[in-house]
């Protein structure tokens, strides 16, 4: 990775609050993204990712706060410089692969002389050149996502919004999709990826922000976020741990964050070999499995966003 570049702000959100009825979707949300590359927006369902993307595309207006894209307030006109891939398919089953791109090209005002060439270039890049005449309904799930990626790029947007683009895509297709996209697009434009897939974000993102309850709780490069963690992470499948047991684990020397997600407890530790025997001594019948991993973005995520079993103890003087 190269050094940070000084670039104009592509997205600048300051203190955005937005409500749907009683529900507060965004709460004092602030984020500024500059430069090109892949930026990940990570958070659980309902954390506000899609609401923020909706605002970038000028389909919602913040109740409070200011939002600028390319230095101005989001508008329908600005959508001409934004490409979008939605979480769910948005393809007409009665149209062919090529027609789908032509339609988008015309809607986005691509010069008619450039449409045919640009269409074939993108279809080839995304491995769909031989399927150009086929109805979109005959494509596999992964191919449809690739087609939607190609369609989102037909007008050469400066900002590409990807709203959980690989949901439901099998691992092979997912790999093919990212390779096709990043081999030609990384560094060419700003890509904002909203996702729940932490491993994917760890692999493809240059920088990420964790969102919880409608606001950013941590941000940085994946390496920066992982740097603050202990060296190793334990993923413990544990039937019904009690608060007392988790408090005890957290009090052990060398223990970091203890978080719980269903029947899985994540513990960041300095040295797993010391902890594993102590865990089995603490709850010999309730612990079903323990895996040891090097700290990942997922651990950083659970540290900031995961449902915290216990709030951190207050520092004492």
């Amino acid at each position, binding site marked *: 990775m190269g050094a940070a570049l000084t670039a104009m702000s592509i997205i600048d959100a300051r203190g955005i609050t937005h409500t749907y009825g009683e529900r507060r979707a965004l709460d004092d949300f602030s*984020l500024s993204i500059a430069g090109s590359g892949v930026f990940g927006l990570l958070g659980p369902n309902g954390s506000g990712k899609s609401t923020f993307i909706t605002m970038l595309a000028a389909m919602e207006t913040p109740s409070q706060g200011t939002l600028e894209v390319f230095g101005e307030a989001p508008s329908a006109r600005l959508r001409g*410089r934004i490409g*979008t891939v939605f979480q769910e398919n*948005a393809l*007409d089953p*009665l149209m062919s692969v090529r027609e789908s791109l032509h339609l988008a090209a015309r809607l986005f*005002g691509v010069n008619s002389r450039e449409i045919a060439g640009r269409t074939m270039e993108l279809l080839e890049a995304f491995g769909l050149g031989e399927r150009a005449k086929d109805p979109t309904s005959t494509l596999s799930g992964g191919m449809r996502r690739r087609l939607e990626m190609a369609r989102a790029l037909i007008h050469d947007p400066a900002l590409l919004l990807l709203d959980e683009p690989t949901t439901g895509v099998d691992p092979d297709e997912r790999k093919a999709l990212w390779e096709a996209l990043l081999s030609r697009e990384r560094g060419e434009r700003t890509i904002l990826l909203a996702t729940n897939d932490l491993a994917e974000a760890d692999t493809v993102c240059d920088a990420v922000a964790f969102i919880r309850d409608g606001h950013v709780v941590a941000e940085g490069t994946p390496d920066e976020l992982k740097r603050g963690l202990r060296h190793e992470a334990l993923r413990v499948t544990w039937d019904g741990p009690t608060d007392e047991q988790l408090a005890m684990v957290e009090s052990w020397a060398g223990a970091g964050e203890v978080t719980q997600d269903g029947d899985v407890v994540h513990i960041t530790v300095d040295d797993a070999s010391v902890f594993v025997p102590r865990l089995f001594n603490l709850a010999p019948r309730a612990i079903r499995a323990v895996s040891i991993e090097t700290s990942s973005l997922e651990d950083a995520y659970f540290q900031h966003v995961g449902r915290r079993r216990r709030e951190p103890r207050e520092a004492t003087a």
Partner: protein
Amino acid sequence: MSAIEMRTRGAQAQVRSEAAPTAISAWIAMFGRDIKGVIRSRSQLYSSIFTPLLILVFLGNGVSQGLSPAKLSAGNFTAYLVAGTVVMTSVFSSTFSSASYYRDRDTGVLRMFLSSPHSPRVILLGKSLAGVVIGVIQALVVLVVASPFVEFQWQYGIVQGILVALAAVLLLNIMLSGIAQVFASRIKTMQGFHLVMNLALFPLLFFSGAFFPVDNLPTWLEVLARINPLSYGVDALEMAAYAKSSDGFFGLPIDFAVMAGIAIVVYGLGMMKVPRLTWSGD
């Protein structure tokens, strides 16, 4: 305040300057897509053409031969039905075209439209205009295919009569597409939309003079026929194509004024209060 400046492998993002796409280019693209959709939905295409023809052939001949109604033009009920079947075709076409709103919503295509640099108004108007063009084409196909069955009178002359018929079909479809689009963009389900359209438009179709003369109906039904917008489409087409004189008709100025007035009102209402289209397309 958060601030992220991404490390990149390539060049700094350049803000591209692009000419704003026009609404007309969007409408042409949307029309092209919708006409392909109609052609590829064979059942919709065939039913829209053959249903009116079946009515002409079977109902027209049956009534003409079996009942010989004396009030019909030259005693020919088939000829009488032509204007009505053209209006009926327009009603069905506008309903089907507006129902494509639900297909677009359910397939996600509406989201793609909304992510383009056009306002929801432009998108809704584009869909509506595509419906108008498709409806006009289907209605004219019925008019042309039906021509061997009837003896046209062309009281204004052939060219003028054809122009009047074209104008009537166009105005009728603008009015109907506007009505259907207003319903479609406010009713959440396709089933609900078809129910409302059937409840609203079928009675209007029956009391428009499309299938039987409304001259001797009871007063309350005659009043219904007079406030029925479809009556004026039937009236204009009958006058253009096979009426020998204007006696007993509303008259072209009234027909066109009523249809244009309603079209302006429904489009005005539709554009003044565009339903809130969300990112999810709901």
